[in-house]
């Protein structure tokens, strides 16, 4: 699993990337009450706004960490957004995308590096 500095995680399987928010991000967001997911087939460049996650307090954008086309979204989050808090790095995934350029993953953090990054942010 790879992590971005925006606190997203990416699990790559062939050219399909599954994307969600890290346990740290879920904790920072607080109780998630709504998730707006992209349409299947939507195309994003790296860094585009792809989804929105809302807690009681505020709305936060989720950026596409990679360029590509959405192939699936986690529709279960529409009814049970609290899964983002309960299982952020497994059942709380947001969307899957067919990535256009695997090299965009180069330099992204692994779990160990992300842990260090979090420590440095505090």
């Amino acid at each position, binding site marked *: 699993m790879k992590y971005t500095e925006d606190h997203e995680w990416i699990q790559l399987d062939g050219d399909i990337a599954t994307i969600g928010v890290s346990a740290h991000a879920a904790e920072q967001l*607080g109780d998630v009450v709504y998730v707006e997911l992209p349409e299947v087939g939507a195309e994003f460049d790296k860094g585009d706004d792809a989804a929105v996650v*809302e807690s*009681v307090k505020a709305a936060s954008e989720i950026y596409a960490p990679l360029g590509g086309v959405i192939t699936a979204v986690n529709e279960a989050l529409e009814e049970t957004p609290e899964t983002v808090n309960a299982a952020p790095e497994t059942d709380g995934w947001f969307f899957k995308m067919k990535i256009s350029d695997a090299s965009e993953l180069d330099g992204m953090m692994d779990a160990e590096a992300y842990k260090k990054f979090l420590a440095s942010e505090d």
Partner: protein
Amino acid sequence: MSDEETKHTQLYDFHVERGGKMVPFAGYAMPVQYPMGVMKEHLHCRAAAGLFDVSHMGQAFIIADDGTFETAAAFLEKLVPCDVKSLEPGQQRYTQFLNEDGGILDDLMVSRLGLDGHEHWIYIVVNAGCKDADFAHINKNLPNGLKLKILDDMSLIALQGPKAVDVISQYIPDARTMPFMSSLDVPLNGMWCHISRSGYTGEDGYEIAVKHTDVVAMCELFLSHDEVELIGLGARDSLRLEAGLCLYGHDIDTTTSPVEAGLIWSIQKHRREQGGFIGAARVQKDIAERPVRRRVGIQPEGRAPAREGTIIQNTDGKEIGVITSGGFGPSHGGPVAMGYVKRRYSRVGTDVNLLIRGKAKPAKVVKLPFVPNNFYRG
């Protein structure tokens, strides 16, 4: 605010020690939430009792040198539209400071002390973000023979929720039957306090002014009761929004009049008719001609919250207003919002659209509050 030091209340260390996540608010570092989280804090307050630090708010006395309540009340009635003169000792009212155009400078609580020998003292509580301007406004209008005494040695805490009465009445038996919007000046476990039955959650509860030197001990005392949990600003906001209460700077400000804001209930009949307060002409005009827009409750359909600033459209796509407070209501179990719409769209049940991230989403004008108020009226 960047070059200004963020202020701390007396409870700053107390919050940090208990895991409070401190954020800047109105010039103060205040806890937005504790480890329990906003959702659970909110639900706990509605089910049991929640303890809030609201010491950032401004507190002051207005006292006349002639020792009469009438002189102080006559002065304050020039600045606020509510009936101050008829306040009985120990009685409290909600009101607003208005500017010349009838816009709201701040909203506040005004009460007459019930303490023997101090029944001529008027006590006010104003918003943190407005307090310096409010006190300057009072001082500017203050005639000789009257004093504004700012209480910078007093903290303010709130204990809110259906179990608050059980906690407080263990120390102050009379607090069980004191009516909503009344106050007592009494010792609580040896700590002198001004306690009023009021709050900002829609629940039964108390606001307690206590000396800086006693506030930590008083909070520790309340927290020693199992039914009491600390509640941060996050849940304070969702609680008041569900209760349909205005947040200054959002739902009311200098561009809104009390009539537009639906606060006319706080202006007693003879004051509407006789005026005699700053901004009276606007209030009277809004009553006579009816206001152009009205504050209403908005129920978004579905689960997407509509945040402050969201444009409200009619079903034909024409802009008719704006959301001024919006979020998720944990007790309501869905999104809740309030905002202003043109008067013809203010009727309960009117279908409207909310422009959320570029998409029109259906919503309805609804009656406030979203969660029934639970005040103790005796």
